[in-house]
């Protein structure tokens, strides 16, 4: 190959100007390594082109460099400080915005965690308060019931008191004194003279065995009259109406009572007006 002819063919200039086709480029790349004069010719033309471009340089508008640095987000070169000031501001703004967003995100996370913790606290608090409230409602209901009981009992006692305070009421003390083994027993019979109703109160009798019940008797001229069975009265029990009697007595009888008293089971006895 005639190297000189190759160099003068224009292929080198085509290559440097970017007009050579791929085959020409490949050939030249190979030849430049083998022939220093081809390498030299290439470099020479490159330098000529570079010099020519420099000779035909056109002043660039002053703001272009700042725009490039801005687009690439590079720090401004010192000599361009004033021109690229906006670049610095932009970077700062971006940094500030990120740091601000990070702060906001951090604050949001803290708030979220705080809120979650408060939720847990309030749920447990709510549960304990709800339970307390339910307990209080139950307690109040039981107190209402208890109050009703007391009210009832108080009304009964008022009635009893009014009854006992009645001037027509006479009191008959029944006692176990004189009856063997019954010395500690006692009971009080109230007998309303206008209505002839009989009441019993203040029993000091042992609890009756199962299947047994105390029975009150009125004695008129030595004859026993059934005055009624003594049940579980809270205060005073109203028994039967007895028109006339000289004595009252209580015996232990089978549940439901007997037509005649079992005198072996006499618990207490007392005389009217005695």
């Amino acid at each position, binding site marked *: 190959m005639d190297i000189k002819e190759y160099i003068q063919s*224009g292929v080198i*200039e085509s290559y440097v100007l970017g007009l050579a086709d791929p085959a020409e480029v490949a050939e030249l790349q190979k030849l430049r390594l083998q022939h220093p004069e081809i390498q030299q010719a*290439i470099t020479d033309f490159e330098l000529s082109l570079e010099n020519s471009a420099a000779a*035909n*340089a*056109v002043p660039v*508008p002053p703001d*272009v460099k700042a725009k*490039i640095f801005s687009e690439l987000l590079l720090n401004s070169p010192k000599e361009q400080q004033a021109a690229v000031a906006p670049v610095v501001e932009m970077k700062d703004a971006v940094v500030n915005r990120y740091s601000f967003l990070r702060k906001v995100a951090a604050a949001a996370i803290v708030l979220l965690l705080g809120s979650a913790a408060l939720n847990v606290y309030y749920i447990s608090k709510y549960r304990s308060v709800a339970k307390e409230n339910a307990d209080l409602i139950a307690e109040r209901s039981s107190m209402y019931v208890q109050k009703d009981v007391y009210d009832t009992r108080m009304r009964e006692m008022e009635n009893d008191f009014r009854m006992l305070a009645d001037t027509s009421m006479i009191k008959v003390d029944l006692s176990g004194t004189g009856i063997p083994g019954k010395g500690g027993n006692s009971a009080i019979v109230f007998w309303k003279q206008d209505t002839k109703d009989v009441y019993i109160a203040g029993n000091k009798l042992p609890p009756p065995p199962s299947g047994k019940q105390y029975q009150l008797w009125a004695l008129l001229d030595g004859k026993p009259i059934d005055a009624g069975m003594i049940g579980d009265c809270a205060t005073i029990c109203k028994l039967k109406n007895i028109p006339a009697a000289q004595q009252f007595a209580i015996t232990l009888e089978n549940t439901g009572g007997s037509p005649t008293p079992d005198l072996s089971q006499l618990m207490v006895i007392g005389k009217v007006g005695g």
Partner: protein
Amino acid sequence: MKAIERYSEEQLIIMLKQHDQTAFSYLYDNYSASLYGAIVAILPDVESAPDVLQEVFVKIWKQISAYDDSKGRLFTWMLTIARNTAIDTMRSKSWKNNKRNNELTEDLITGGVTASPNTDTIGLRKIVHSLREEYRVLVELSYFEGHTQDEISRKLGIPIGTVKTRLRKAIAELGTMIKM
């Protein structure tokens, strides 16, 4: 030519490949006007030239790792980027104009070439304008408008072989003129 005063080309390339901003600033200060001249020579309107230069330097910064100094000098590489970017811009504008005016691409190309040499052409293009007409048209179409030899052959109705040899001679002559 502004000689490299502070860095050798080797040093500059190493620094640029490391994305050294000082080196990039230095590169801009030393070569932007040369490249701007080449861009202005290609573009039909000067208004878009600053944007093209900006694009060129952004590409240089981003593509510096692709630069291979065994294929040519740094300036040659940058000049190729400038030329391609300018032609791309011109073409996208021609395409838009073409669409708007409903004109044929052929008319546009032929019009650009056959128009009488612009009196205010500069730089390399000015040198090209001093070539004889049959060479000038080929260099215009290939170098300044970026057409392939195949395209030129079709547009001008000249056999591809003729285009190839004639363009080679034209460029050889252009090279001689540039070296002077």
